[in-house]
């Protein structure tokens, strides 16, 4: 189950040249700075723009190849635009039903009620779109796109036009969509925080070309890519809740690199969680420290290093096969004698729950 895309076209301000295979499961993020061609690629995949000589195959169906060009309304996709773009002449219900009516009943796999429940928009149904808040509008737009039972959901920075407070209001819905539906999503964003919360797979675009593709854990810690060199660089790990410590109000978690303890999470044992470890909050020691206030100390080995401009060094570590990032000074790096393969202990000062 993959999306094979090959597009090559010029715009006045950039040229796009893409030849890639995207896994069509989970959330794949098209990630890159503004103006790198993310939206253009998404529109080409949706068939909203026609580019001659393109090739596009989604799962087993060819959507574009030579003279064959499947019109956008014949492609089994859902599209969420940056602005909600609801039809102002229809009620919220009318907007939702617009696509459902045009989806043959044997193709309907998501019931309209299911989409309404998932996005919690039942109270809005009889209202006019013009009376909704930005966050509500975008939730309706997402439900509308889901209600056509797409085989592929395309989302073009669905949170960009929503202010940051509303953003926190919508992200949980995207997460539940991810958990409860098996629709593959192609998600365009230039926001590191959104992508690190939502994405399973990343396609990094830079000035119209694919700079790298891969797993979110791997790509965000690769020192040759911009994400790891960002001030807010962080590694993302997947862990499972193992037990709670009621007396100290802590939760213990397991991940392939060892055990992690953090402030109590309200989740039952066995729950999968995604955690974010800021590179700045990871320090390195040659021996396991005792008599420290830091709870999380993990045995790691050095994978690679990169010196940054401001007297700092980015260190990529491996903890049981899971890559972690540490941001230390060049001075410390030399004093510790860091080199590839060297065993160390990583002290993690704080951990954030992502999802």
């Amino acid at each position, binding site marked *: 189950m993959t999306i094979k895309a090959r597009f090559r076209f010029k715009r006045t301000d950039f040229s796009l040249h893409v030849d890639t295979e995207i896994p069509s499961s989970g959330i794949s993020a098209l990630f890159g700075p503004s103006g790198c061609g993310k939206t253009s690629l998404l529109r080409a995949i949706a068939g909203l723009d026609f580019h001659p000589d393109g090739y596009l195959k989604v799962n087993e169906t060819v959507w574009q190849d030579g003279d064959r060009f499947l019109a956008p309304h014949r492609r089994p996709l859902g599209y969420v635009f940056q602005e909600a773009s609801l039809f102002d002449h229809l009620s919220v219900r009318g907007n939702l039903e*617009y696509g459902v009516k045009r989806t043959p009943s044997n193709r309907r796999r998501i019931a309209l009620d299911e989409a309404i429940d998932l996005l919690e928009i039942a109270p809005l149904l009889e209202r006019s779109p013009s009376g909704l808040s930005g966050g509500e509008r975008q939730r309706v737009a997402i439900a509308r796109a889901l209600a056509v039972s797409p085989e592929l959901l395309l989302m073009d920075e669905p949170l960009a036009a929503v202010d940051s407070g509303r953003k926190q209001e919508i992200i949980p819905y995207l997460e539940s969509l991810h958990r409860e539906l098996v629709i593959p999503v192609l998600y365009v964003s230039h926001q590191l925080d959104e992508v690190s919360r939502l994405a399973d797979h990343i396609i990094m675009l830079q000035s119209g070309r694919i700079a790298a593709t891969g797993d979110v854990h791997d790509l965000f810690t690769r020192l040759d890519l911009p994400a790891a060199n960002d001030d807010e660089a962080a590694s993302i790990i997947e862990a499972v809740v193992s037990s709670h410590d009621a007396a100290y109000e802590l939760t213990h978690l397991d991940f392939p690199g060892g055990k992690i303890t953090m402030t109590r999470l309200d989740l039952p044992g066995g729950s999968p969680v995604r955690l974010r470890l800021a590179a700045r909050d990871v320090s390195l020691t040659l021996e396991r420290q005792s008599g420290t206030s830091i709870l999380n100390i993990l045995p790691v080995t050095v994978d690679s290093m990169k010196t940054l401009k401001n007297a700092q060094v980015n260190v990529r570590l491996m903890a049981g096969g899971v890559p972690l990032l540490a941001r230390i000074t060049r001075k410390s790096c030399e004093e510790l004698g860091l080199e590839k393969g060297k065993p160390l202990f990583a002290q993690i000062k704080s951990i954030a729950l992502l999802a």
Partner: protein
Amino acid sequence: MLSAADMTALAITLKLALVSTLILLLLGTPLAWWLARTRWRFKFIPEAIVALPLVLPPTVLGFYLLLALGPHGPVGGLLESLGGRPLAFTFTGLVIGSIIYSMPFVVQPLQDAFSAIGRRPLEVAATLRASPMDRFFTVAVPLARPGFLTAAVLGFAHTIGEFGVVLMIGGNIPGQTRVASIAVYDHVEGLDFSQAHGVSIALLLLSFVLLLLVYGLNRRFRMMRL
């Protein structure tokens, strides 16, 4: 107060305006849609042609129509050779003249309304499985509703006010091509001011009520959108 002949003239005026407006909407909608959507670099040429009646003296337009529709003109001649009648001095001829004369008043508001919608709602509809024709009728037309109202009323009102073109190609045949504006002119020429008043007031009121409708309803549409 109005004579039977004047009532007939008013009835013909209304019938002419109604028929012309309906045909104008049928022809003008696809034309306006195409003008609003095309990226053709020479689209300013059809736009200029549509706008021509705005600046051309109606008598000039009427004169050329008279030549074209008369028995020796290309259209009239063709009809005659096919066993028909030339169109000059007929109601059909008046309808053709009105359509050309009022075209900009219908096409321009529609084109503006279609342009104002933008591409986005139609793209959304496409991703919701609507075919191009379906998108046009279920998204573009409802969203352009104020434009349709303006176009219909302006086309109608402008046809009612038509004088020069009618005079040139319609002649002044009572019961067939004698419209209200010509009746006013005739009454004034004959110094029959009270009859001229009667027809004039009827036209004045009609036009005013129509414009009230446009402005009032368009305001309501705007408020509904807020």
